[in-house]
């Protein structure tokens, strides 16, 4: 067992964990933050994506101990109370989700993406989204959501 200290959504956690524990399982089952979803456990579908020190990471391909001393952001960090993040608001307005299972990972990737590229083209959004699988929407409404969120964020 290994001691681990991480900051998740601004709150510090200290735990003893098995070295083989996946970060995705740590977040979900140790920290009880169920917003992060697990879809493939081999790094393709992107549902489990969180931000690790501000950059997207597949939590299913990361060991919990690799997050020691680092800061994690999950989907639970996006809204401030009842106020949705512009990305969440845009997904709601553009019908950017159906079952919602892949959505948390996409939101976290998109947050980083729009920080890097505040005025993306549709093609750039599609290239970024190719790291995520969604089986409900056919992607068009997700692309529209991210483009709309970019507009909102730029206007802020």
């Amino acid at each position, binding site marked *: 067992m290994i001691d681990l200290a991480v900051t998740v959504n601004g709150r510090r956690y200290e735990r003893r964990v*098995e070295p*083989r*524990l996946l970060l995705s*399982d740590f977040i*979900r089952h140790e920290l009880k*933050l*169920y*917003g*992060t*979803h*697990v*879809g*493939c*456990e*081999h790094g*393709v*579908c992107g*549902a489990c994506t969180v931000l690790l020190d501000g950059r997207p990471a597949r939590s299913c391909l990361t060991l919990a101990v690799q997050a020691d001393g680092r800061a994690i952001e*999950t*989907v*639970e960090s*996006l*809204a401030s109370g009842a106020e*949705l993040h512009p990305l*969440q608001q845009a*997904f*709601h*307005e553009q*019908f950017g*989700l*159906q*079952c*919602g*299972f*892949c*959505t*948390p990972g996409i*939101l976290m990737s998109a947050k980083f993406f729009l920080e890097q590229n505040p005025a993306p083209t549709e093609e750039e*959004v*599609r*290239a970024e*989204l*190719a*790291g*995520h*699988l*969604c*089986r*409900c*929407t*056919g*992607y*068009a*409404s*997700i*692309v529209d959501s991210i483009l709309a969120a970019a507009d909102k964020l730029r206007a802020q």
Partner: protein
Amino acid sequence: MGQPLRRREDLPLLTGRGTFVDDVQVADPLHVAFARSPWGHAEIRSVDVSGAAVAPGVAAVLAGSELPELTDPFAAGIVHRLAYYAMAVDRARYAGEPVAAVAADDRYLAEDAAELVLADYEPLDAVVTIEDALDPAKPMLHEQVGSNVVVDRTLRYGDPDAAFASADLVVTETLRWERYSSTPIETYGIVADYDAGSGLLTMWANFMGPMTLLPVLARSLRLPEERLRVIVPKDIGGSFGIKSSLFPYMTVVGLLAMRAGRPVKWIEDRAEHLIASSHQPDRVGTRELALTNDGEIVGLRAHVVDNLGAYVRAPEPATTYRPLGNYVGPYRVRNVELHLVDVVSNKVPTGPNRGYGCQQVYLETERALDEAAELLGLDPAEIRRRNLIPADAFPYETPSGGVYDSGDYPRVLELALRTARYDELRQVQAAARAEGRLVGIGIALAVDPSISNMGYVSVALPPEVRQAPGYLHKSGAADWAQVRMGPGGKVVVTMGTTPQGQGHQTAVAQVVADELGIAPEDVATVDEFDSHTSVWSVSTGSYSSRFSGIAAGAARRAAGVVKRQILEIGANLLEAAVDDLELADGSVRVKGSPDRAVSLRRVAGVAHWDPHSLPEGLSAGIQASEVLHVPTSAPPTDDDRINSSHAYGFVADVIAVEVDPVSWEVRILEYASVHDAGTIINPKLVEGQVYGAALHGLGGALLEEFRWDEDGQFLTGTFADYRCLTAAEAPRISLDHIESPSPFTPVGAKGCGESSSQSAPAAVANAVADALRPLGLKPSHLPLTPARLWELAEG
């Protein structure tokens, strides 16, 4: 109704507060891992679980060999009785078939212990392809059947022999389509808790129905149905039919909970999902069309073989039979012969997958029709025009017994051609061809059946079986909704439809609000299935695109009863006649005299607080619970006709592609899709369904493929091997709709959840065939991956 209202389902899902099956909280659950066969086909000499049983953290172990003692085989609607148990008993029949299950304190320990299960296998020759299954020299999977062909029926309607004998032209197309699946991003999941005192087994599972499978499950567990409680968590992470097939795992997880005396949880991983959940069958289908020189189709023959995998798992062989009522699609042809064969093989059992059996039928017909058009020198649009059922023919009875409720197929086709700018596309194609580029255009038309008749699978049984004394017929497609008004005048609608992201609550609020003249925000909605508290029947569930027709229809009926109650109370309070009143803006008022009004709050208050003052015949409170029965869903006739669905929408897809002659990639240049799904409740929800369905169809036709080697080894066990379409390849679709309200559903709506999943494969295959025609190449093996097109080009 008809407004693009935003979804009330979104907020929890966007903020990480959904409730999926892996989020269900039970105290201190054990976690399950399976030991699975590494062989496609092998005798199991022994399974030794003793090492696993004493591994750290292990609380219970179950070997497949124990199942005949503890369970009964799962029933399916065919003549032969295959012994299908939840795990392999003495023979493994597909790579990945479970042979033992272990429950331990956490999933890591369970997986460690599962690796300690020692099974001794004697490998057998594997039956992999359809040709293998039809080869009598190959081993039989189920010796008691005497063959790997488990269903073989020939159905005749009209006089197909005469039609073919007198035809000017007969075209024959054979298409092979490998397996794919809609692979929801959330895998299967089950939580089981057994109370030894009461003998009640409670299971939470992301199971989507049909609830026909609950009696099948209860019988396998040898539990009376009141001792099996199944609860579907509020959120399911996609299904598209696939999660119907999770019920065999419920038997295992339930048994482990009973054995361990503790709650038990199993969350399938992706590798397990790809190898051992459920696929669409691989299929070889031949379509013969008999035509006149004018392009009129006078006869249609089908010869199809569906590969159902190792066992026939209910509701299979429904893939082969679901399209029965709409086999002729939108065409007038009356002389039809269908030779329908189902085989078993060493692949995972099959099950429902978005479109369920129809994409195969339309691929075969639409490809053959394009080849006929080419031979007759007709434009593909023109040959279709010449065969469409006219708009004044509805309701239209098809030769195989389908009753098409409403539609205007010519109008939809013309609108699709306009939306795609078809004539302009043909000019673009001509110019591209002149430059040597491979550009093609494909059209596909699909009659979109919704609301399956529980009786259609019975056609897999020969009439003499169905006519025998004691045979029990099946029919129907009912579902339920309840509407009630609380003492404060607010409305709650309750359903049990097991949604998977379709937005049922948003839509039903619109339907009920419309009926009651209130705002959708004033309608609270609950959509949760619990077999002990929901009102349900065997047809309940979210499959066969049935929500808007049946559940929303039941809600509308219930709201209509509630409206009548409100008006009667209002009439009493206003001293007016019911016929003179209307419901509007949250009040009951006298038509033409809006001053004479009473609020719904006041009406509800009287019903709840002062029922003594109610008019005679009214009960306390305001509520109605309606089961919408579907009388058009009758059992099959003795001559094999069946109205296999209750409503029939229509889709016209036009797709233009360019094929790269070096990489052989297919790029979509244009996709136009026009739908008639009857009355539209919420256009944005419909758009979402069409987009998702189209992508599943395109994925299955162009890229997605489960593969095995000749020994039955599975080759596509990750999402890197089984490749789904991503946003980088997914097209924009130019969408349009017409609305021909269904006379058979209370809202006038028909399903649209499967829509273009049935037409996109045919449209894109026609487009690729059109693109390759100058090279003299005809693709006939799907999916049309770059590798497969390259092989075709290389000869």
